[in-house]
């Protein structure tokens, strides 16, 4: 039996980052959706749920932490989609802020292929 592929929504305003993550995640068997900011991500999630969010922090219109905080307050299963937060910042205060907003894990950019795949699988409950 073939497993249904898990879908990842990559939320990052940097186009090159999205292309990079897409190529890595698709190669690892995931389906990928993209959003350029937190508002677009919220809009996409209304139309189709996903299995994992990969969310950057610094984005226009709505930053990643505001997006995550908003999402976690919503009703229904959409509020508990696992979220991997990525950021250029590596201070403890930044980890704490991400956790407080509802991140399940935090990776410092630039994100490496192996890390992204490993944590995507882990957070989606996919065997490696």
């Amino acid at each position, binding site marked *: 039996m073939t497993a249904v592929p898990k879908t990842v929504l990559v939320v990052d305003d940097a*186009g090159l980052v999205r*292309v990079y993550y897409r190529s890595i995640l698709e190669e690892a068997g995931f389906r990928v959706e993209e*959003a*350029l*900011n937190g*508002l*677009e991500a*919220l*809009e996409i999630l*209304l*139309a189709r749920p996903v299995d994992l969010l990969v969310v950057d922090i610094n984005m226009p*219109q*709505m930053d990643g932490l505001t997006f995550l905080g908003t999402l976690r307050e919503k009703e229904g299963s959409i509020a508990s989609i696992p979220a991997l937060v990525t950021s250029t910042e590596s201070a403890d205060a930044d980890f704490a802020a991400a956790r407080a907003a509802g991140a399940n894990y935090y990776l410092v950019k630039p994100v490496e292929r192996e890390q992204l795949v490993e944590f995507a699988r882990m957070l989606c409950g996919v065997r490696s």
Partner: protein
Amino acid sequence: MTERPALTEDEFRRLCEYLYRRTGMVFTEAKRYYVERRVWERMAETGAASFAGYFALLRTDTRDEIQQFVNAFTVNETYFYREEYQLKCLTNDLMTERVSDKQAGDPIRIWSAACSTGEEPYSIAIWLLENWSRVDEYFIEIVGSDIDTRVLELARAGTFGKRALMRLPAELIGKYFQELSAERWQIEAQLRDSVSFTPVNLVEPGQTRQHGQFDVIFCRNVLIYFDDTSRRLAAENLYDNLLPGGFICLGHSESMSRISPLFDVRRFADAIVYQRPGTRT
């Protein structure tokens, strides 16, 4: 006709990203064919020899190329019952929510904020009269506005040609229009008199504020032409013109996500719509 190669993945992606950033329009994979065709049309028109060459023109907005490109998707030519999915959403969902705390006889205010020659506000009026079972319970005020006073004059006159009426069944044309001459119809007087037309520049809070607050605003294919600051300002003006809980409908490919975080996004069966938060007190 020379061969027209398809856009590569990367070219399509670059174009969509750029247009989203500049205009707020979202072009998905589903629209690829239309986007490609438009690129070919514009390449032929501008003499660009390659996608990269055309993209450079677009990036620099040479001779208003962004507007030229986008025009094909906004359909300058307006007609009755265009974007019927939003009219359906209006009667299937939006009106129900808006009247949930209104009494019989209360006003419902609807604003067509880029009404051009009037097809949109008149369409809303006819649609409500024909499709909303509760239309007689409330006083419905429909306001049409545009920055262009010439089109407002035409809207007030309410005469239209065959193309504008092409989506309307004959029964509705007979009911709401008077045939003036061969292929020229006029909205019947009572309906014409019940829609008001007024000039408004959406970027001027002094002009928008005075029209009060609305239950539903239609603002289709206008914000895409503004620069970033003007777009933000227009969104704030429109927000102020909405009642708490009121709705705003944008054009089919437009998204508020590039424009402003002021509104909540709501997904209904027929349409995605934006809402000013809060309930009426």
